[in-house]
C-alpha cells in the first residue's frame, strides 16, 4: 500500500515537473510578449514587472524541488499554493471582481480561450495538486521519503 502511494507521488511529481517547465518555457519563449501581457493585468506597473520575472522563476524552482525526494514535499506544497493563486485570480476575473477586465491572454490556453476555460484548466490542475498534497502529508505522517 505504501509502495503504491510512493509510486503515485513520484508520478504526480513527474506530471508537475513537466507542467511547470512547460509553463515557464511558454512564458520565456516570447518574454517580451509575456511582459506586455502582465502589464494588461490588474496589478500596478511595478508589481507587473516583478511578477514577469518571479512567476517563471518560481515555476522552474518548484520543478527542481520536485526532483529530489528530500525537497519533493515542499515542491508539492508550493505547486498547490501557486495553482491555488492562479485559480483564485482567474476565478475573480470570471466573477468580474476587478474594476477592469484584465486581458485573458496570460494563460497557457492563449487569447482565444475565455476566463472560464482558463479557470476550469486551473481548477483541474489544482485538484491534481491537492492529491499530491494529501500524499505528501500522509508521507510525512509516516516519516517516510521516497
Amino acid at each position, binding site marked *: 500500500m505504501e*509502495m503504491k502511494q510512493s509510486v503515485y507521488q513520484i508520478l504526480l*511529481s513527474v506530471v508537475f*515537473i513537466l507542467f511547470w*517547465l512547460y509553463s515557464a518555457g511558454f512564458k520565456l519563449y516570447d518574454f517580451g510578449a509575456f511582459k506586455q501581457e502582465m502589464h494588461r493585468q490588474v496589478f500596478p506597473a511595478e508589481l507587473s514587472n516583478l511578477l514577469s520575472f518571479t512567476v517563471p522563476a518560481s515555476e522552474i524552482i518548484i520543478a527542481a524541488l520536485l526532483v529530489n525526494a528530500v525537497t519533493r514535499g515542499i515542491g508539492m506544497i508550493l505547486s498547490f499554493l501557486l495553482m491555488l493563486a492562479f485559480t483564485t485570480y482567474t476565478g475573480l476575473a470570471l466573477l468580474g471582481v476587478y474594476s477592469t477586465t484584465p486581458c485573458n491572454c496570460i494563460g497557457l490556453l492563449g*487569447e482565444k480561450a475565455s476566463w472560464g476555460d482558463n479557470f476550469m484548466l486551473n481548477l483541474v490542475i489544482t485538484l491534481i495538486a491537492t492529491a499530491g498534497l494529501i500524499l505528501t502529508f500522509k508521507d510525512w505522517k509516516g516519516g517516510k521519503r521516497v
Partner: protein
Amino acid sequence: MNIIKKLPLMAFVLGLGLMISMSSFKEEVKEPAKYDQNASYAFEYNGPDFNQASVELASNWVYVANTDLCNGAKVKPCRIQVSEDYVNNPSTSPALKSIINISAELNTLHGTYYVKGLDDPTGLISNKPN
C-alpha cells in the same frame, strides 16, 4: 522501483531540454506567424493634456510606422497597437476609428490618466513614466 525513482530527474532533464529547444525555434516559427496572421497598427498619444476625456478620444492618437511599444509604467499614455478592424484607411493614411473604446484610469500619484483597456481583444497597450 529504481527506474520509477529516477523518473522525476528524467522528466526535469526532458523539460529543460524542451524549454531550450522551444527558445531556439522562436525566431523561425513564432515571429512570422504573429505578423502574417494579424497586422497591427501603432498609434501614439498626441493629446493636449492627460485628462480622461483626452486620453479616451480616438482623434488624439496619431499613427506611427514604428510598432515599438513603451516601457509600460502606468503614468501617462504612450502607444497602443490595434488590429486593422479598428483602423481607417489602413493602406494609405491610417487613423484610429472612433468606434474604438479606449478606457483610461487615473494615476493618483501624478494626477494623470493612462490607458487601462482597449476593446480590441488583440490590441496592446503601453504607457510611460512621468
